């Protein structure tokens, strides 16, 4: 089970988004998004394809610039700080990409070693090896340490991608469609891993997903993005007790009626 309310620090806001707007040409993707995420909280962001969910977390990670509004991560405005400060902030952020984005010219060891060696230059070879093996053990893929990404299954690549973010011990995790394209059994493994990461690393997370089972299992709060804004925010039960047609069809497609 994910963190209970008592484990979430309601006073410590780790991500604060105020009136965020982003357009691509004439396409208004985000139309005034407001969201606060607290220390130790997992929040699932749901929405239709093209509703701006991935754009939202890329803005939080500083990969895209907002048109207007404020995005504060750990007290710093992401689009206003210097390059050096942004780089330091990113050490506290973990980003799990939908496609895993593993470096395909490096082995699993190389993928995990790359961010560690570049950002923790004072570590000895032994400490690096211990860190790599520790995080691979956490995701249950120690045996894959010398394999190339092309030799891994989709679920394995996803877990290695998560391991690569965990090696820097982030405070905030951003998951972009963590269960996309995976079979139900592997989805369960990924959901359990997200919960385990929250508990073991005491992270706060934003989980972008279409998978309501993932949202229900891993998230403390659910937010539904509609027409560029958060239409409704609350617990899974609160959100899906709504009579709104879009919300109902989202729920009914994921959970077959009567089952």
């Amino acid at each position, binding site marked *: 089970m994910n963190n209970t309310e008592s484990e979430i620090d309601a006073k410590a806001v780790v991500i604060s988004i105020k009136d965020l707007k982003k357009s691509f040409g004439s396409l208004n993707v985000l139309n005034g998004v407001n969201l606060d995420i607290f220390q130790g909280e997992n929040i699932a962001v749901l929405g239709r394809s093209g509703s701006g969910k991935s754009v939202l977390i890329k803005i939080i990670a500083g990969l895209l*610039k907002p048109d207007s509004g404020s995005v504060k991560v750990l007290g710093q405005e992401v689009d206003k700080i210097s390059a050096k400060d942004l780089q330091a902030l*990113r*050490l506290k952020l973990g*980003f799990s990409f939908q496609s895993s*984005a593993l*470096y*395909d010219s490096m082995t699993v060891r190389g993928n995990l070693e790359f961010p560690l060696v570049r950002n923790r230059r004072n570590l000895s070879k032994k400490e690096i090896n211990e860190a790599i093996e520790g995080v691979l053990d956490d995701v249950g893929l120690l045996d894959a340490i010398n394999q190339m990404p092309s030799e891994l299954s989709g679920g394995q690549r996803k877990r290695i991608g998560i391991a690569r973010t965990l090696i820097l011990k982030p405070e905030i995790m951003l998951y972009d469609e963590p269960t996309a394209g995976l079979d139900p059994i592997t989805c369960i493994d990924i959901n359990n891993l997200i919960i385990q990461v929250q508990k073991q690393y005491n992270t706060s997370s934003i989980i972008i997903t279409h998978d309501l089972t993932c949202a229900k299992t891993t998230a403390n709060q659910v937010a539904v993005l509609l027409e560029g804004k958060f239409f409704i925010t609350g617990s899974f039960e609160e959100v899906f007790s709504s009579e709104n047609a879009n919300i109902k069809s989202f729920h009914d497609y994921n959970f077959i009626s009567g089952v």
Partner: protein
Amino acid sequence: MQPAINPLPEKKHVISKGIDGFFLDIYHVYKFIAQFFKEAFSGPTEIKEIVNQCYQIGSKSLALVSLTGLVTGIVFTTQSRPSLSVFGASSWLPSLVAIALIRALAPLVTALIVAGKVGSNIGAELGSMKVTEQIEAMEVSATNPFKFLVTTRIIATTLMMPILVLYTGFVGMMGSFLNVHQNELTSFKAFVKSALSSISFLDINASIFKAACFGFTIGVAGCYQGYNAQNGTQGVGRAANLAVVVSMYLIFIEEITIVQIVNAIR
């Protein structure tokens, strides 16, 4: 502020779509080159990756450059002999081949080979990384992807091209010697003496400078096309193709320009 990987801005057509697009592309290339110089002269330096890229470029090109240099030397010598023989000037073959190889053939032929082999590889590699979000993954893990991927490759191509050009020149001269020795029974000592007597420091320096320019062009073209690739696998293929085509056009323009400058100095 670290430049975020934003999509290229929408083009507002002032004159026409084609002309506006051309000047917009020139502007983006200018910004790309400016960022290269900014990253290249700010620490920390990626020495290990630069050395790795130099090794990759050298090892990938060596076999083809060797063969091309050898064949160029042999063929040029063979084709030049009849014309010189008419005037009884066959003894000038080593000089003629040395001048042709060092001043023009070695830099140009080597650049075209490296543009095809290395330039396309860089375009495809970076393009593939771009469309699979590996560059973004590098950026969010607090690594500067431009410095690590682009700057290192451009520095490596700029450094390796002069070395490869000198090597091509050497191999070409060896090929020429084999041919001259077989036909005129010229000794190695006489061949080298004749060849070196016609080459000046200006020729060698101009050749090295030209090679460095070609290397820089190949690196920039390959990295620019790959780093800005879009639209999945089609974009990767386009990046690899454009890396070669653009490099080759620019290499020819640079060749003509530098030849004019060197001749004016001579």
